[in-house]
């Protein structure tokens, strides 16, 4: 965190304290009381910063005036019956879901609003902080790749300019050289026309050794040498890249339904295993069958989203959805999800990336054997599992063991 962000956050906090104290000194809304009320009465359907069932309440006090809010919160249905335009609009927008009327005093409602204001501010502060952090992070990240304190980009630009200057200099020098030679020729052979090869003849002492060197070289060896150099370069390139041939890193195909992991796993915090039921049991994490989708989507239709309709139709027509497979290991690899998730206690995100933050998920890791092995070399085994106590006698001498130390990089652990 840089000094400026620290200062700004300090300023905001001071401002908040001032605001809060000034308000509470007036004897009216109390955000602490508001928080209690909010959590017991409102949080089932509302949140600040996200939509649950009802609208996002962030900055609601800035959108609507306080009196309207107080009467809406107390009895929204009454306002709707009276035909309040704003109230009717919200009611329609949220699927005519009825917000129950409450029996709170104006002050209590104000306290809730104060709490919402406070939360809104806190949220904004976090956002501001994150932005600042990202900004400050970016700088040192670039600074990492430097040459003697100057960044790579700068070095490249400088070198390019230098190269251009040198080329220009070379051209100028050649031009000067040729002009001087021509003058010299004209002076030494007055009146004679210059033969076509005058420059070669004149330059013999300068170019000859160079030509001589190439003439001395056996052309077969020269060609073979060239081929050898090229071959070596190609082999090195192949060796470096071969493991990644066929790697589907970054593969994010268009799916028949643009399923949003961010919405499901992130916003709604649905557990991965709610849908990927096999992950704890066997090798396959398995694509959820449609009946799992329908557990929720029989009720949730997301404003008649055509994509959800596809799910419903497929279910009703008994036609499975043909998803495009994103992760596909070679047939000669036996990979077990259960081994990693249950025995290894590994988070899904370790291999699949920040699922809950990614709307359209792709293959995040390169999933090459090297990647597997690297992880097996570093990852420690969960020695609390009774299996190791009962079947291995050497765990006692070790505080910790990596997967590779118990044979986790042996061939037959994955290839059989």
């Amino acid at each position, binding site marked *: 965190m840089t000094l400026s962000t620290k200062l700004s956050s300090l300023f905001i906090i001071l401002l908040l304290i001032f605001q809060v104290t000034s308000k509470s000194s007036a004897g009216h809304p109390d955000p602490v009381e508001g928080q209690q009320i909010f959590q017991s009465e409102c949080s089932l359907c509302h949140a600040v910063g996200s939509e649950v069932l009802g609208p996002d309440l962030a900055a609601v006090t800035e959108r609507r005036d306080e009196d309207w809010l107080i009467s809406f919160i107390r009895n929204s249905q009454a306002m709707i019956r009276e035909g309040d335009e704003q109230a009717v609009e919200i009611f329609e927008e949220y699927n005519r879901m009825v917000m129950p009327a409450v029996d709170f005093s104006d002050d209590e409602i104000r306290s809730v609003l104060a709490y919402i204001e406070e939360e809104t501010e806190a949220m904004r502060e976090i956002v501001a902080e994150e932005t600042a952090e990202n900004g400050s992070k970016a700088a040192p990240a670039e600074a990492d790749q430097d040459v003697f304190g100057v960044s790579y980009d700068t070095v490249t630009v400088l070198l390019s300019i230098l190269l251009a200057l040198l080329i220009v200099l070379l051209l100028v020098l050649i031009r000067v050289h040729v002009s001087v030679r021509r003058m010299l020729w004209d002076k030494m052979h007055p009146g004679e026309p210059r033969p076509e090869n005058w420059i070669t003849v004149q330059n013999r002492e300068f170019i000859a050794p160079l030509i001589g060197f190439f003439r001395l070289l056996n052309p077969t060896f020269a060609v073979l040498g060239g081929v050898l150099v090229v071959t070596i370069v190609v082999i090195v390139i192949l060796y470096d890249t071969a493991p990644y041939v066929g790697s589907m890193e970054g593969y994010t195909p268009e799916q028949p339904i643009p399923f949003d992991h961010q919405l499901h796993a992130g916003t709604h915090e649905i557990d991965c295993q709610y849908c990927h039921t096999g992950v704890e049991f066997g090798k396959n994490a*398995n694509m959820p069958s*449609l009946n799992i989708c329908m557990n929720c989507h029989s009720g949730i239709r997301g404003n008649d989203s055509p994509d959800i309709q596809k799910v419903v139709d497929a279910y009703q027509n008994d036609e499975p959805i043909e998803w495009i497979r994103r992760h596909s290991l*070679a047939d*000669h690899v036996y990979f077990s999800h259960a081994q990693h998730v249950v025995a290894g206690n590994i988070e899904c995100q370790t291999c699949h990336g920040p699922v809950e933050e990614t709307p359209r998920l792709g293959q995040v890791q390169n999933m090459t054997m090297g990647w597997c092995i690297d992880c097996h070399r570093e990852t420690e085994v969960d020695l609390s599992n009774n299996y190791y106590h009962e*079947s291995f006698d050497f765990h006692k001498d070790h505080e910790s063991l990596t997967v590779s130390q118990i044979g986790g990089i042996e061939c037959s652990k994955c290839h059989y």
Partner: protein
Amino acid sequence: MSKADNNTSGKQYWKGIEEYEKHPSFEKLKSKEFAEELPKKYNKLTHKEYEKDLPVEKVFDEKTFDLSSDRRSFLKYFGLSVSAATLAACTETPVRKAIPYVIQPEQIRLGIANYYASTLADGGEGYSILVKTREGRPIKIEGNNESPYGRGGTCASGQASVLNLYDKGRLRGPLIDGGSVSWSDLDSEVKSTLNEIQERGGKIRILSNTINSPSTLQVVEQFKSRYEGADVQHIAYDPVSVYAIREANRRSFDREVLPSYNLEDAKMIVGFAADFLGTWISPVDFTKQYMKNRKIRGNETDMSYHVQFETNLSITGSNADRRVTLKPSQYGKALTALYNKIAAKAGVNRIDGEQFELAGNTIEVTAGELWKNRGKSLLLCGSNDVNHQILVNGINKMLGNIGKTVDLDNPSYQKAGNDAQVQSLITEAENGEVDALLILGANPVYQHPAGTRLREAMDNIALTLSTADRLDETAQHTRFVAPDHHFLEAWNDFQPKSNVYTLSQPTISPIFNTRNVSESLLRWADDDREYYEVIRKNWEENMFPRQDEKDRFDFFWVKVVHDGFFAVEKSEASDHEFRADINEAARGALAGSNENGLEICLYEKAGLRDGKHANNPWLQELPDPISKVCWDNYACLSPKFAKENNIKEEDVIRIESGDYAVELPVLLQPGQTYGTIGVALGYGREMDEQAAKVANGIGKNVFPFARVQDGTIRMDQSGIEIENTGNHYRLAKTQTHHNLEGRNIDILRETTIQDIKKNPETAGIEKPYPSHTLYKEWEYNGHHWGMGIDLSACTGCGSCVIACQAENNVPVVGKEEVLRRREMHWIRIDRYYSGDPENPEVLTQPMLCQQCDQAPCENVCPVLAITHSSEGLNQQTYNRCVGTRYCANNCPYKVRRFNWFNYVNSDKFDYNMNNQLGRMALNPDVTVRSRGVMEKCTFCVQTIQEKKLNAKKENRGLRDGEIKTACQSACPADAIVFGDMNDENSEVRKMMDEKRAYEVLEIIGVESSIRYLPKVTNKKHEEA
């Protein structure tokens, strides 16, 4: 014989006649680095005779191998391939779909197998099973440990039954006159014809294999009463029948039943032409019982004694302590002699019969041992001659075994065929008396000696109908075909024994437009109920009242569907009065003993059995447990007989009896009785071309050699003429394929119970060499997987081979490739002979990757495709393997398999893996290997990983016995134990700590993770 050839047991072992006789072709290949044949141009060893047109080698014609080219064309090819590769690389990655269920069934979790209790029923035979399904597809059969029916054991044919479900030869729907119709059309046609027959009081005959399903029998009764007025009769028939036992029991004890045999209590077992560990009645059940007294641990000295009298060398004979060969025509004499010897001891009147004795006074000694073990002995006879069986009953009665080891009060319903009724049906049909013939699942045209007669007679029958799942020999000639479900698609119930009821439930929705045979009968009986309802109702009325554990039928039903069986109290076994006229039986038996020239004795192979599942490529490629030949049947001759008649191995001979003759290649089978020919049933199928892409054209049909005499079908015939045709035919024999490179030292160890008694510490086995290693020893801090294999328990039946194939997606390669030694089985069962080639001792040894600690394969891989795991496994990494085959070369056990072709996608390997339907049987947890990749047993690492994860998920340690490899769980003898050697209390640790446990090739110091327990036999007859 050099010293190194001597085994620790002092025996000389050989794997085939070619090795015994040191045949030059064998000697030549024995020490080859790669004994597999290479494409012919590059293999100087190639025989002329098979340089003929071999389909697979068409890939490698001369042109393809002519790699010389000028500079211009080289550049052209180079440029083309580079640009093609570039273009190919530029294509977009294919878009893959992830399609979830619309409504996910509650019990299905993707990637996790579900197990359903069910019952395997092949005719009447079978056992309780668990069906492993993945995402709604059955992929594997496991035994059901809790059920008294089979007790967790399985057989090869049962393990392979899941592949029959995905057979593309199955019918897609009902047919009338070969044309597809709807079920309603078929039903109305069938019903109108049946009604017409009913009106004129005609004869309706239902012919089926053994049906022991109470509900199906009820439905049959319902059908009969619906067509009252017509003469309706249900006839059951078994291709390989034991009808004589039931008939003999009717005459002897007035009970027409097949008894339950109790091998667990038998200390002295005599098998008389009964392959009860391989194919007879209920081999899985018998193996479980038999092994109780055969596995010897520590200082135990209590072991049963088993003598086997037989013609062909069977699985049972190969496991017997003493085996005697005799011709089928001598059965009567031998049984009479045995009766008289025991009668003498019992003080009972002897019966008329000449003096008869076999080599080594066997009958005398056997009679003595039987008498010593009165009430604890058992004589089992596989002959289908009623007189023989009456003699057997007489002997068991004298020995006091009735009510003890022979239980007539809790009979078995596993074989209910009535040979006499089938015979009279054929006569009726020939006389044109039958109006309707409904054939339920049976295939009498192929599987009956008089099949051809029936087929001809069928033309005159108004209504012929088959419920076969494919156009087999019978269904091709019936007017209607109403295909039945595969048993994994249908509900059914069974009563295999009087005290055990089992259920089978659908584990997949019907793949094709088929219908349960019982449901078909219901429709024709104007009943619209589903068969499921019939079963439920039947169980509610008849089984539910027989228990008091559950008070409501729904609870009871849930429990039996879950368990797969319902067992009731056994009745008390009691002795029964013997009423048959033993003298008359003896006279009959001796009169039938017509020693007349060469005799043929037909037998079933442990995998293919009576040929019902001949279109199953797994079973076709399963090497026969004894001969180790796959993809063929052949004429087994004794080496001595063949030599005397100037017949060599793989000569084609013509076998003729009456008006039937076949040409078959000869196999010199040690242990084959002199003067007899053994030929396997189930081959020579002539099904519809589409129905049997695998089975048609393999081997020859020998059912017509069986004879019907005195109302029973006999699987032998005398007066056989043979003639050498001068042709040759190559047999795919696998036994000599994987030689342990001339290291004949300490592969096998065996001892006798007598040696153990004398010297409990070493039992006469001395550890040959101390073990040293220069390599760093591995440290195993966690698990250290190991396996123990008890050679005493291994019968060699082959169910582990098929189980492994199913579990690990092992491809089928076909006969041509097996001939090139390219079979892919990860576990093989090596069969070794020792002693006299006319009657050798046999030892079977499962051989799979030994997961060596100092593995020779690991050191030689140039690309690190084989690595050692911290749990002691040699990890083969297919996607890293480049196919140098150095590892296979360096493997002392020869258990590594190389993928010469892309078996999954090639038209040349038209078996199960190259079509969508067959691929449904693949195990999704195991990679399907591609061409150019080495593979081998992994100790079912997929199961290890799965169970470890289960333990971690449940926050507990791994339990011993939780991980079961496919071979282990399939084994009906529990010969294989797998587990963590670091766990001191584990079963496998105990097995490894046995004094006699040994490593194969211990001397080379590879420190394998598999310990074998030596084979222990009971040489009572050698005791002074």
